[in-house]
């Protein structure tokens, strides 16, 4: 017999009878989930690679918190390179009665040296490459600022003391990142207008950049020159680090969702392949009786698997292609990347993964059916070796290989496998316990009617299958509960933690000479007790008399921290959000003494002990302090806080200083900001409300993307459920026929079925709610640092949604068995 013809005929029969439907479905889910995420990640990776030069806006960019040294510009000129200066800072922009916090970029002629600004006449119109930069007195804004300020072309904007005419919408610009610094909408102005705005004074918070381009040799020579203190160099290779990091983190999170979907799909494939293998046993016994050899059966089974794998791979790849496009649309503009067309390799890899999954999970139980002895044609109990141990070992090895391929890290794969095993064990134990608790209920259900007795009886009878169903569905529901209900729950708990009058506005860059005027301004508007904190910026140069640099510390985090200026403040009183843990607070007695109180983070980074001395350099003015107390700070209080505090008078009057404060401004009084900025143009207002809304918007979109991928996890969970439900089909047919013979009507049997699946679903939902609640509690305690108690609503939602989903699926899958004619019983006899 032609083995291909036989395999094809068997496959068609298996497909028509629905025996292979779940294997196919689970494979498609695994291929689609993996393909979607890999394809999307690959597009992002390619986009970053292609656009890094243009993304940076130059071949090299020097950055500093203070104006860049003139010597740098001299070197650029000497080497024959082009340079263009850019200044970035945050400020509130006004248009009529509207105001918004903007990220202002003041650019000089020649900007950008690489890439181009794309400009449109009005939002959502087609953009074109801009020529030059905004003319003095004009500004370009991105679409979000247009929207926030409800702008019209030619509108007049006010930035500090400056009045600007709006001339275009920025649709794309080099150097626009997706990091926190660039959260605010962009306003682009001419560098010549900067001085007139009056926004930047001494010590103002701004970023100064110098973009450089030119010949490769000259650039290499420039790069070889030592960097001045506080100056950082960015090259195209490290462009968009925030994007690389955030896509890597998001990628890892999505990978976990994909791995969960793949592992569930593996379970579904293994379950349904085992059932298919069992059904094949009669057929194989007969074929052996008729003379079929083992080799023929092996080739026929493997060919069926190959055909199935190719079909599922193609369908999964198509689905992945569509799904990654949806993901790209959901996240594309957030990443601010021009994504290239999808490459085909990740799709082929995903299809290959489908074949691997088939070989590891479907082939062993199906091939084990070849062990069926021909004697089975006479004695049905003869099943031969089921090779259970070998099947389990192969499945575990395949799962480990899949995880290793997905993560590329043996250790991580091991951890994920152990974690998945642990989570499954915990869910299964919980399910086992609930099913056990149900047994006495089943005996007491006599009063609930026959349908309940029948439904609960089935659960107890198929205890193993019930636990598998509850576990699989519980896992899928857990994923959904976590990303929907629990996320909302934790976020709102966190928001509620802040009292309603939590400061929502920060003022920074307040100069000493403005202090009295600013206090009077606020007193006149009802803010008499506004506390302004002095702040000086110093660099640590010695610890206990020994000079230190970044290289003095082994860990990268401390090295980065040391490289920055420390913000130091002074006071005789300690705010309620600070608590002394060691030593004593100096109070009034400390005035003028060179003491320091260090926060827990500084203590940990510098390994400080009480009595240690720290020498700080305040723009050339060096001072040494003795650490006299340790503090913990509640950084979530939204009030100004400092790693280092000193007594008033301890810092020399020669040290430059500025002041900052925070206060709560009701929404209806936002007009006050306009007056404030007009009167004090160099004071920077940070609108935390707006920032929080922007952060929340970004988090929401990332969560939506993750939820989208979790849909695959849920689908895989449902495939497992379907596999276990379908595994009971032949038994159900027999039961239904018997019950009908004994006089049960369709309605009664249907009610029994619904009762059974409602209970299974409720159990799965309950298990998922327990797990979600536990995880939420762990997150609340360790990440959010908030109190998080039991949430009865979560239990209710979990249990109810589980009951509804499983009832629906059980009904869809098995409703046809309700039509089993009763004479089937006699035929089976």
């Amino acid at each position, binding site marked *: 017999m032609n083995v291909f013809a036989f395999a094809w005929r068997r496959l068609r029969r298996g497909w028509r009878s629905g025996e292979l439907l779940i294997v196919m479905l689970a494979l498609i889910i695994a291929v689609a989930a993996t393909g979607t995420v890999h394809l999307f990640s690959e597009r992002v990776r390619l986009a970053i690679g292609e656009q890094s030069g243009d993304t940076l806006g130059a071949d090299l960019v020097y950055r500093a918190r203070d104006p860049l040294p003139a010597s740098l510009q001299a070197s650029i000129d000497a080497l024959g390179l082009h340079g263009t200066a850019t200044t970035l800072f945050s400020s509130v922009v006004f248009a009529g009665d509207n105001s918004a916090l903007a990220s202002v970029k003041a650019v000089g002629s020649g900007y950008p040296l690489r890439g181009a600004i794309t400009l449109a006449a009005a939002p959502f119109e087609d953009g074109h490459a801009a020529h030059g930069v905004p003319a003095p007195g004009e500004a370009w804004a991105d679409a979000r600022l247009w929207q926030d300020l409800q702008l019209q072309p030619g509108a007049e904007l006010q930035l500090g003391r400056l009045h600007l005419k709006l001339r275009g919408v920025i649709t794309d610009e080099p150097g626009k990142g997706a990091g926190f610094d660039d959260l605010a909408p962009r306003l682009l102005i001419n560098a010549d207008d900067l001085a007139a705005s009056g926004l930047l004074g001494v010590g103002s918070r701004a970023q100064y950049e110098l973009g450089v381009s030119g010949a490769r040799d000259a650039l290499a020579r420039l790069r070889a020159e030592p960097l001045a203190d506080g100056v950082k160099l960015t090259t195209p290779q490290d462009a968009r680090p925030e994007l690389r990091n955030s896509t890597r983190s998001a990628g890892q999170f999505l990978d976990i969702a994909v791995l969960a979907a793949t592992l569930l799909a593996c379970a579904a494939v293994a379950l349904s392949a085992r059932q298919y293998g069992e059904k094949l046993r009669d057929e194989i016994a007969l074929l052996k009786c008729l003379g079929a050899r083992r080799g023929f059966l092996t080739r026929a089974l493997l060919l069926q698997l190959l055909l199935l794998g190719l079909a599922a791979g193609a369908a999964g790849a198509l689905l992945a292609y569509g799904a990654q496009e949806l993901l790209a649309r959901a996240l594309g503009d957030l990443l601010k990347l021009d994504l290239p067309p999808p490459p085909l390799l990740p799709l082929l890899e995903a299809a290959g993964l489908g074949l691997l999954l088939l070989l590891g999970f479907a082939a062993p139980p199906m091939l084990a059916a070849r062990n069926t002895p021909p004697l089975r044609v006479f004695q049905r109990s003869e099943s031969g070796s089921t090779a259970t141990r070998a099947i389990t070992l192969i499945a575990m090895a395949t799962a480990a290989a899949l995880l290793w391929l997905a993560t590329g890290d043996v250790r991580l794969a091991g951890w994920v496998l152990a974690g998945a095993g642990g989570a499954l064990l915990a869910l299964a134990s919980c399910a086992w316990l609930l099913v056990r608790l149900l047994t006495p209920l089943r005996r007491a259900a006599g009063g609930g009617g026959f349908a309940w007795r029948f439904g609960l009886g089935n659960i107890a009878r198929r205890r193993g299958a019930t636990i598998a169903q509850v576990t699989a569905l519980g896992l899928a529901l857990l994923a959904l509960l976590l990303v929907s209900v629990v996320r909302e729950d934790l976020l709102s708990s966190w928001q509620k933690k802040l009292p309603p009058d939590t400061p929502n506005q920060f003022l920074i860059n307040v100069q000493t000479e403005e202090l009295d005027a600013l206090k009077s301004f606020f007193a006149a508007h009802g803010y008499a007790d506004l506390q302004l904190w002095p702040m000086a910026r110093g660099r640590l140069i010695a610890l206990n008399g020994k000079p230190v640099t970044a290289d003095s510390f082994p860990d990268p985090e401390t090295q980065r921290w040391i490289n920055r200026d420390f913000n130091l403040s002074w006071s005789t009183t300690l705010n309620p959000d600070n608590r002394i843990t060691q030593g004593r607070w100096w109070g009034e007695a400390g005035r003028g003494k060179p003491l320091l109180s260090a926060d827990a983070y500084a203590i940990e980074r510098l390994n400080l002990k009480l009595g240690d001395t720290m020498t700080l350099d305040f723009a050339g003015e060096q001072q040494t302090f003795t650490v006299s107390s340790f503090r913990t700070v509640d950084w979530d209080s939204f009030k100004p806080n400092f790693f280092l505090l000193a007594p008033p008078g301890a810092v020399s009057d020669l040290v430059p200083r500025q002041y900052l404060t925070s206060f709560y401004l009701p929404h209806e009084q936002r007009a006050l900001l306009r007056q404030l900025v007009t009167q004090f143009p160099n004071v920077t207002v940070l609108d935390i409300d707006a920032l929080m809304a922007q952060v929340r918007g970004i988090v929401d979109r990332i969560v939506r993307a993750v939820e989208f991928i979790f849909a695959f996890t849920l689908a895989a969970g449902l495939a497992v459920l379907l596999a276990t439900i379908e595994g009971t089909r032949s038994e159900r047919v027999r039961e239904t026929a018997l019950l009908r013979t004994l006089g049960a009507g369709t309605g009664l049997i249907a009610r029994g079925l619904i009762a059974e699946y409602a209970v299974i679903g409720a159990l799965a939902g309950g298990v998922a709610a327990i797990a979600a609640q536990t995880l939420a509690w762990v997150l609340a305690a360790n990440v959010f640092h908030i109190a998080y108690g039991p949430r009865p609503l979560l239990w209710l939602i979990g249990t109810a949604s589980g009951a509804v989903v499983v009832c629906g699926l059980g009904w869809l899958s098995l409703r046809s068995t309700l039509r089993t004619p009763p004479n089937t019983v*006699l035929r*089976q006899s």
Partner: protein
Amino acid sequence: MRASGVSKQVSSGGQPLTILDHVDLDVAAGESLAIVGSSGSGKTTLLSLLAGLDLPSSGEIALAGTSLNGLDEDARAALRAGRVGFVFQSFQLLAGFTALENVMLPVELAGLGDARARATAALESVGLSARLGHYPQQLSGGEQQRVALARAFCGEPQILFADEPTGNLDTITGGHIIELMFELNRARNTTLVLVTHDATLAARCGRRLTLASGRVQAQ
């Protein structure tokens, strides 16, 4: 129970196949009838039609005085509930239900009260009072068929249908089951319709109906 001109045709490989051909039959209350015939003669089909498990292609069937022809599946099930008992060759007990729960099934389905007490009594009458909480897989074949007998008689049905009740049992155990079935039948005066290959068993019934190729050969 009455069958008038009952025929049953099915389609096999696109061709019509006649399984029963104009069968006429009357079974009086309390009578016992054995349907015999070779394999494929239509015995089981006739039993399933008489019990309302299937509908004839033509002809009329009345069960307990009610015509089955106009009734749908559920109405026929409702007619059987509490009136009809069954004994099958392969016992057909629900694996997840205890012996007691299996026996309670028809009583509950018929909506009769005291299901537990009736089922307990029925199991006592077949000598299984010590096996109430056992599951089918914990019982021998003979014990399983005794549970099936208890289930068949528990609701005190007017009619008992039995399809090769000893087909899966050895001769001695089968003999005990037959004794028990006839004893219960006598005690309750139940109408008995029995399908069998066993001539000795058929001889114990009041009447025999022999089928050959779907036609009544002797009555």
